[in-house]
């Protein structure tokens, strides 16, 4: 099971690395969003400081949608979804492998974004532990919800537009929780970031389990 | 009555939506029923319940 997970994750990441889309397109997109927000908010330093957490995670949401689309397209475009089943890999392993691949890509983007907000928004990081933990835990939840919904829309006509409609409301708790945790980590608001981290962990756990169970049904029947 | 505008808006929206949706359902039902051949016009007692 775990070797299968590693297999699928390595395959997705290898494809991603070779195409260099993440590095050459997604990361610049994320940076661009940060810059655009700077323009939109009139380079107003106090406002940018207050808004940093929110802007960070909204950007991650958009990048996540792109990452999930690409993750699903790897199999869908070549009609290879059946091949995954026929290869004898357990659907749950496929799910976890793809989840890990999406999560790794998101973490790469988040590293760049952290550097971005430090440089562009003058963010001062009070608690690196909380910041990094939040990134990790929230990303797993995002990747889990994203991967299962990505598989869900895989066979559907207008899948590029319907995926955000499904994914973003489901990710609302992550947006709320990760933003509050970041506020604490950046020292801008007095909230208990670690409590929010617990909620994020709960979200992640629930959606990983749900995804593992639902993935088989989706692969076989849709 | 105070706030009458808000009350009319809220109640009107609710009841209006109900009436419109009901009319829509009935019309849709009639159109479909006319298209389905008679032997197949059954409901609520499916074989695979």
């Amino acid at each position: 099971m775990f070797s299968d997970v590693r297999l699928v994750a390595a395959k997705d990441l290898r494809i991603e690395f070779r195409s260099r889309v993440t590095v050459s397109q997604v990361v610049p997109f994320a940076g661009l969003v940060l810059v655009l927000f700077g323009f939109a908010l009139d380079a107003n330093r106090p406002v940018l400081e207050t808004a940093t957490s929110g802007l960070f995670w909204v950007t991650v949401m958009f990048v996540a949608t792109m990452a999930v689309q690409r993750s699903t397209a790897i199999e869908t475009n070549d009609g290879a979804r059946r091949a995954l089943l026929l290869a004898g890999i357990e659907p749950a392993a496929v799910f976890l492998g793809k989840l890990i691949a999406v999560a790794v890509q998101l973490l790469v983007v988040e590293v760049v974004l952290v550097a971005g907000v430090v440089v562009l928004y003058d963010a001062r990081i009070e608690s690196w532990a909380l910041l990094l933990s939040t990134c990790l835990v929230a990303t797993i939840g995002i990747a889990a919800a994203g991967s299962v919904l990505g598989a869900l829309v895989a066979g559907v006509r207008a899948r590029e537009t319907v995926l955000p409609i499904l994914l973003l409301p489901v990710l609302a708790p992550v947006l709320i929780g990760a933003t509050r945790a970041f506020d604490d980590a950046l020292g801008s608001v007095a909230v208990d970031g670690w409590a929010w981290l617990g909620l994020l962990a709960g979200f992640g756990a629930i959606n990983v389990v749900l995804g593992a169970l639902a993935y088989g049904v989706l692969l076989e029947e849709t | 009555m105070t706030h009458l505008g808000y009350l009319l808006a809220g109640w009107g929206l609710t009841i209006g939506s109900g009436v419109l949706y009901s009319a829509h359902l009935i019309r849709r039902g009639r159109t479909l029923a006319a298209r389905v051949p008679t032997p197949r016009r059954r409901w609520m007692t499916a074989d695979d319940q």
Partner: protein
Amino acid sequence: MTKPMAGDSIEQSPVGRRVSTGSRATFWLGAVVALGVLTLILLGFFGAPEDDQQQDAVRMIFVHVPSAILTYIAFGATALGSVMWLWKRSVWWDLVAHSAAEIGVIFCGLTLATGSIWGRPTWNTYWDWGDVRLVTTLILFLIMVGYLSVRSMGDDDATATRAAIVGLIAAVNLPIVNRSVEWWFDRTLHQQSSLTDGNLEDLTLFTLVFGIVVWILFFAWAMIHRFRVGWLERELRTGDLDEAIAARRAEALIDSQPQNGASS
């Protein structure tokens, strides 16, 4: 109403001359609902007293609360129907899930709209981000709009499975959504549950409960019709196929029998 002419294939139904998804039962149910709505209007506007602080704006409660309760009943039915479809592949339950989702989205939208309209004169704001129930209901609304969106993309079993999983995802994630919004702000403008408070005047309480009953009856009426509409759509889709298969089988039987006067 036109008289059926010779050659018409329109059948008599218990109600009127056109065939519909209605029946004698739904006719009377609908009549009761209509009567109930009229009574509710009278009670709500002229019977129940105004509030000390909100004055007449409190009368919004008679449309807002029943809509909210129906939203949860409807989406509960969708969640249950989704599970039953995934578990037993029950077409009946799948139709229940779809019908309840459509009705539920309408009620949910009305809950949000009436709540928003109510909020303006009462708290001087159309929207309050600090209101847990309001924000959770909004997220629920968005997810279920997504459910209907997935449903509209096809009418086969695969679509039913996809929608059922969206329904499951919604049901499973909703407590977390609620908890996260609850923690988000400690205060809420939303008035505490009036029903359990016991602070309502007698006539107000009666009118409120009356309103809930009328809404539930409407839900039953709408579900019956919407279910039958869904059933008919399914019959149209699969019926042609079944007929074609039967016709092909009959053809095959004829082909396999020796023909009269056929030359070999």
